[in-house]
């Protein structure tokens, strides 16, 4: 039997950017890059639904989550302090395939950078990071031991290229492109990569259960409707009907 929700104390908390929170909890078990947990940072049923948060890192039996503080649930998590408990269900989803010996570009948009850190740590071969942000970069420094090149774009122009992260990438340089970020960015990337290089996307969608039961997070694929939570969240772009 799998564990239902477990309760873990927050052992680390920091702000990476004004609305970006990083928390860590102790955990022991198998966790793959690209997998996620359903998280509740409150007791009771309001807000009703748990929040799906991807694993940003897993090391020394500690899981890190990056949380964009945005709505009612994430605001409650933001109010928690060290020693306060969160409830977790997971790890869920299929995660990324770990490739080796390929030239790979990781393309992140905003908080979509989170699952790519743990992935970068697990991959060998030539891996480059392309990361786009609204205001200012975060987390990028921590990729540096594990990757070759870093390319930054911001809407504000405060750091890196002023404009879209998708402006920066030359797909022909790579064997595989892996992306996580806003759908509008990932769709633009799909256009750029089309016919030139394989693209894998980690998707996000409104979820209720996280375990493949509610059919709320489905996406259309060439082989029928698939759930982001259980069949994904990582899909080959060539399989998706976007």
């Amino acid at each position, binding site marked *: 039997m799998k564990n*239902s929700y477990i309760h873990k104390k927050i052992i680390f908390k920091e702000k990476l950017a004004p609305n970006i929170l990083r928390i860590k909890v102790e955990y022991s078990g198998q966790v793959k890059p690209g997998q996620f947990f359903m998280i509740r940072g409150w007791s009771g049923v309001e807000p*009703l639904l748990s929040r799906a948060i991807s694993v940003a890192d897993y090391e020394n039996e500690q899981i890190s989550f990056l949380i964009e503080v945005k709505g009612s649930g994430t605001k409650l998590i933001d109010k928690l302090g060290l020693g306060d408990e969160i409830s977790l269900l997971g790890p869920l989803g299929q995660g990324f395939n770990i490739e080796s010996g390929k030239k790979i570009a990781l393309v992140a948009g905003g908080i979509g950078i989170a699952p790519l850190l743990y992935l970068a740590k697990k991959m060998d071969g030539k891996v480059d990071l392309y990361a786009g942000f609204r205001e200012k970069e975060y987390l990028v420094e921590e990729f540096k031991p594990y990757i070759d090149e870093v390319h930054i774009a911001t809407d504000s122009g405060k750091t890196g290229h002023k404009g879209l992260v998708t402006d920066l990438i030359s797909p022909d340089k790579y064997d595989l492109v892996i992306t996580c970020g806003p759908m509008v960015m990932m769709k633009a990337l799909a256009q750029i990569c089309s016919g030139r290089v394989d693209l894998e996307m980690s998707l996000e969608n409104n979820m209720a259960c996280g375990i493949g*039961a*509610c059919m709320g*997070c489905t996406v259309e694929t060439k082989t029928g409707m698939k759930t982001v939570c259980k069949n994904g969240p990582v899909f080959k772009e060539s399989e998706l009907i976007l």
Partner: protein
Amino acid sequence: MMEVAIGNIKFKNPIIAASGTFSNGREFDEYFDIGKLGGIATTGLTYKRRDGNKGIRLYETRSGMMNSIGLQNEGIEEFLQNDMKFLKEKSTNIIANLGGGELEEYILGAKLLNKSDVDMIELNISCPNVKKGGMSYGIKSKDAYEITRQIREVVDKSLIVKLSPNAENIVEMALACEDAGADAVSLVNTFNALAIDIGKRKAIFDNKTAGLSGPGIKPIALRMVYQVAQNIKIPTIGIGGIVSWMDVVEFIMAGATAVQVGSSNFIKPDICMDIITGLEEYMARENIKNLEEIKGII
């Protein structure tokens, strides 16, 4: 003793997983033994497979959620050949939730289910999320009477009719289903509801409206169950926002014979087990030997 009876079927406890919130059990069986449930209402099954609705399908509200799944399912034949083989090994009652569009589609589906291993059929005339179907039979009592009568003619198994809270008159609706030969009614399905994205100046859902469920609807569901149970002779199955054993006791005290647990399966996959254990402990504490002792007691 938590045992209850509905139609000619005995339930070891009154906790049934509600249709559309429990898939066909496989995902939940990884977290607890689903054979411990009183029953499982399958996902809404239609004669032919359906992909469901496009666009956003889920939206959280205060104390609840809205959905517009649109009866995504593999079709009854595929269900019987695949998920039903898994389900029938479980020591719980399998209630096939039958959905559809046109009456003809319902009848074809009912015939297939009637000769299958499912224990009961729950006729869904209350799905708000499919056009031309489902709920259109769940608004006017005479339409509900007609579809129930026609399904009754082709179904020997115990038949539940799942009612919509959007019915013009919920008591008349339940009476019509009883008259047409239903063995029980279950209520309520989701409330037809609307949410708007003010930034986009558009409805959240492609269909504009969607079904509201969750703890926010419980007091209204409870009132409807109370009114219905007072007026019909067949059992009432209470549904709507149940998250704890205390909610179950409220529904039973309002007159329900059994309950279905819906949206809260999403917030904890084994929540039904917490509810069953809590109910058992409550009965022991209060020295209740049979749930009949408190049924409709208010």
